[in-house]
């Protein structure tokens, strides 16, 4: 199988601290993969390396064979990787609708001059983007908040809005960093269904970081486990659940 995303022996150090070492990962098309590990294991750091926020000290990253090292984050997003953040980072002064529309910027066919002349092409595209944004919001049942300032949304909805925004960049690979944090069990259940749904509907691969085992084990087909930056296990949920190393380092009991 040709991997969609391939992380090849990546290491990253911050000063003396090796946050992630020799990390290997490959994710195929339409795969839903989990990444778990204790706090500080390096999960978010892996996300940051993939999306270009940090450059790996060693190793390489590929998306369908294209090397991503050295690219700026926006280039990487343009190639088809989108993410959410562990600490919500919405555009605080924009409405819900505008947060989503802003993310369409990437695929815009018009430039500043069109924005100024406001010709038919511009109008058509703006309308089109608006419609697409509303469609996305509807899937997440956020359309009723269309004109609400995003910072006034309830917390759980903010998290979901981040996913909508990421989807608006039309990714092939979606990275979710603890999307269920701060949700109650009922909401978490709904989120699981939603993730599976968008994975199918948009035909994308998902890499999920999450501490709620019910969520991870429930929807991921394959799971990587990190501890102190080192991969200690990899495999389907059932194996992981029983892996003594994982139990000892992460799951407990």
């Amino acid at each position, binding site marked *: 199988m040709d991997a969609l995303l391939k992380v090849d022996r990546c290491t990253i150090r911050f000063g003396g601290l090796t946050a992630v070492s020799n990390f290997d990962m490959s994710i195929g098309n339409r795969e839903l993969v989990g990444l778990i590990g204790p706090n500080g294991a390096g999960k978010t750091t892996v996300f940051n390396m993939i*999306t*270009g*926020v940090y450059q790996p000290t060693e190793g390489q990253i590929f998306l369908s064979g294209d090397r991503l090292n050295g690219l*700026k*984050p*926006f280039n990487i*997003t*343009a190639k088809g990787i*989108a*993410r959410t*953040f562990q*600490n*919500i*980072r*919405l*555009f*605080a*002064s*924009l409405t819900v609708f*505008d947060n989503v*529309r*802003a*993310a*369409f*910027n*990437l695929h*815009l066919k*018009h*430039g*500043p001059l*069109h*924005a*100024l002349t*406001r010709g038919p092409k*511009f109008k058509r*595209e*703006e309308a089109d*983007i608006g419609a697409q944004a509303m469609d996305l919001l509807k899937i997440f049942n956020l359309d009723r908040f269309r004109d609400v*300032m995003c*910072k006034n*949304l*309830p*917390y759980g909805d*903010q998290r979901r809005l981040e996913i909508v*925004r*990421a989807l*608006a*960049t039309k990714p092939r690979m979606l990275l979710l960093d603890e999307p269920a944090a*701060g949700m109650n069990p009922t909401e978490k259940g709904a989120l699981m269904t939603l993730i599976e749904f968008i994975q199918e509907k948009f035909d994308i691969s998902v890499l999920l970081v999450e501490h709620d085992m019910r969520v991870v084990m429930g929807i991921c087909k394959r799971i990587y486990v990190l501890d102190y930056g080192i991969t200690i296990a990899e495999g389907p949920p059932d194996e992981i659940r029983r892996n003594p190393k994982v139990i000892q380092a992460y799951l407990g009991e």
Partner: protein
Amino acid sequence: MSRARTILGIFLLFLFLFALTGERPFASHLAYYYDILINIGINVILAVSLNLVNGYTGQFSLGHAGFMAVGAYAAGSWSEHLSPGLVNFLAGSNGVLTFVLQPFPFLQPFAFPTAVADNLALIVATMFGGLLAALAGLAVGIPSLRLRGDYLAIVTLGFGEIIRTLILNIDFLGAARGMSVTGRYTNMFWTFGFAAVAIYVVLGLVNSTYGRGFLTVRDDEVAAEAMGINTTKYKVIAFVVGAFFAGTAGSLFAHYAGFLTPEGFNFFKSVDVVVMVILGGMGSTTGVILAAALLTILPEVLRALAHTDFVPAAQKAIEGVIPIHLPPLQGLLENRLILYSLLLIIMMLTRPQGLFGDLAGSRKRVTSSASK
């Protein structure tokens, strides 16, 4: 947007008619008010364009006067030195045009009437000034992108000072003696015309999917990059467009005042513009326009106040009641900056979100869920 465009159209038409009816007679009677209006126009251009950088894109620039200076001096020397040479080359007695037209003597009476020529000269000079300023904006924008907040502020401030110091040392531009610009072409039409264009460009840019990029850069650069937005490009564009309009404002000023000194574009001029942007409420164009007008008029109101007998009379009354001897308080008014600064403080304390700006207010950091 469409309603705004209609209003804009009507406004421009009005100005155009106004330009046609001729403003000289009007100007001579009410030259003072005319002057204030022109200055409002120029300040609106400055504030609205700086708002693109400071308000919408969230970059703290303190060097707007520098770009204005580039525009003013470039346009000024265009009109003084470059353009006459060019005109001479084209239309002088031995110029190209004369040579070409020689066989057709009947065409010669169709030379430009001066009114048209003046307006044309102004546009050309202003575009020239704007473009050079935009170039300066590019030169500052690109290297400064690595910097944030106060570091960016200091670099832009430094740029403004460098420009000023350079002008002080270029004899061609008159150094500290100043430079005269003979062609006083600026009129109401072009001043407000350019102001309208500046407003249209800034609003037009920002109110589109394309332009939302500016706002995302302001709100969260990391998230913006993650959404595929090239933050560098947006910052550079903001700088360049901002500088361009600052340059046009400079040119309009040069062709209005007719005299330029480097000191007119010092750090405090930049600060003045920043004050307009913040008082207007960053990211609110309406507010910024109003603030620009208000802050242009306010000193004049204070000036008028200094000429009334109100204060000495009040002082006499007070001293009549309470047996104290105050220094002549009229001086408080004569030094307009005392009252001006007080009013500035009071305005900020009572309307910290800006005159209209809901944005600046709502952008205050909340300890709520957003920081979870």
